């Protein structure tokens, strides 16, 4: 029982159009495994379900949520969090000593483990009298709802959560664990598609843009990194996923970001070099010309 080719193509172009995520041929089994429970719930086969998607908006939301790759974990890769505590946070505490306020953005936050991992570190290391705000955004509304609820299954809790933090920051609710209100209050959620303009998004001291660029094509990646320049403070940091940090930047961007080795990770920092003089026809000229 494998899904029809047309169904796969229809679904992969839907995902691409709405999220920029690329599902290559050969990923049929993955798409099918993710859609099967929805199809069963709707009382039809996967192929029938795919046809339904073109007319049923609510069902389409559900399918998109099921198809985006949400894999995440607490303190994922550890290195970035170590670097945050040891280096970035002390530097920011000096730099922001007049405002005593930190702003952090978890872009592509998935179910919120990244945002709450940072919240736990801030709870432990932010001096009294300081405040911090964490913005968590994602293209998936289902994921944003999960961040707001702040509840995690046993299996999710096992993924990288130190036992001492589990007992300190979570309470048991049914079969799940819920993050304490004090940390929930630090995190604000918002729907945001990384491949569309970022309207009303301020500047941050730290942006975590991790494990999402890998799903986009080259042009989309570059567009996002170009737009991110206006959302990272001049003395702030951008953290990419461990396989994304060595990304090749297009010529216009290369001088505008610099990589800095911090502990085991590479952070991207704005150089302050201005954008190349805009040319009205630039979008028509092939890049690298």
């Amino acid at each position, binding site marked *: 029982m494998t899904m029809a080719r047309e169904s796969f193509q229809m679904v992969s172009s839907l995902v691409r159009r709405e999220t920029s995520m690329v599902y290559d041929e050969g990923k049929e089994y993955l798409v099918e495994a993710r859609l099967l429970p929805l199809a069963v719930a709707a009382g039809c086969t996967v192929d029938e379900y795919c046809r339904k998607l073109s007319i049923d908006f609510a069902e389409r939301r559900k399918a998109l949520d099921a198809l985006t790759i949400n894999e995440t974990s607490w303190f994922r890769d550890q290195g970035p969090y170590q670097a945050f505590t040891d280096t970035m946070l002390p530097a920011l505490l000096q730099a922001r000593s007049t405002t005593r306020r930190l702003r952090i953005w978890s872009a592509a936050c998935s179910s919120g483990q990244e945002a709450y991992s940072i919240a736990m570190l801030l709870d432990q290391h932010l001096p009294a009298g300081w405040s911090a705000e964490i913005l968590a955004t994602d293209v998936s509304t289902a994921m944003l709802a999960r961040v707001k609820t702040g509840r995690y299954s046993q299996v999710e809790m096992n993924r990288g959560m130190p036992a001492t933090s589990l007992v300190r920051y979570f309470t048991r609710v049914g*079969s799940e664990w819920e993050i304490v209100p004090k940390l929930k209050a630090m995190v604000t959620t918002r729907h945001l598609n990384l491949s569309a303009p970022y309207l009303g998004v301020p500047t941050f001291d730290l942006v975590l843009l991790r494990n999402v660029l890998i799903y986009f094509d080259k042009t989309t990646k570059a567009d996002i990194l170009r737009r991110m320049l206006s959302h990272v403070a001049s003395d702030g940091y951008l953290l990419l996923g461990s396989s994304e940090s060595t990304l090749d930047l297009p010529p216009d961007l290369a001088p505008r970001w610099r990589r800095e080795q911090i502990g085991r990770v590479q952070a991207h920092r704005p150089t302050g070099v201005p954008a190349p003089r805009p040319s009205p026809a630039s979008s028509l000229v092939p890049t690298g010309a």
Partner: protein
Amino acid sequence: MSQLAPEITDVHAIVDEVWRSFLGEAEPLLARPVPAGTPFDSAAVWSASVSVTGGWQGTVTVEVDERVAAELTRQMLGVPDTADEDVADAVGELVNMVGGNVKSLMPGPSTLSLPSVAAGRAAFASESVEVARLDALWAGQPVRVTVHTAAQ
């Protein structure tokens, strides 16, 4: 029902997690409606139960078709062939995981017994009442988890 019972959605979530963790995502566990009182509809069955005593008293029972039991055993032990004692061990660990997590849904402190496993349908004490039941299909074969408490 006056007996203290776990929420069925929580029981479902627990069983689903056990299944996903040890059998992977390729074959989902699909819930199915089965009228109360229907005997477990499989010719060859493995059953296992654990009891909880303390702040809450009850028994958690898992019944699975023998093909499900055999596949679970193969996956857990990582071997192609399974003897009965292997199946008994794997099904015992299965009910231990489900039962331990069900225990944590209920008022404590309580202790969990070691599992008891049988080839064949589960037998329930006549003075016990069923307070939660989950029927599901895995790879087309039936799976049932029931929670009983002593009648008051």
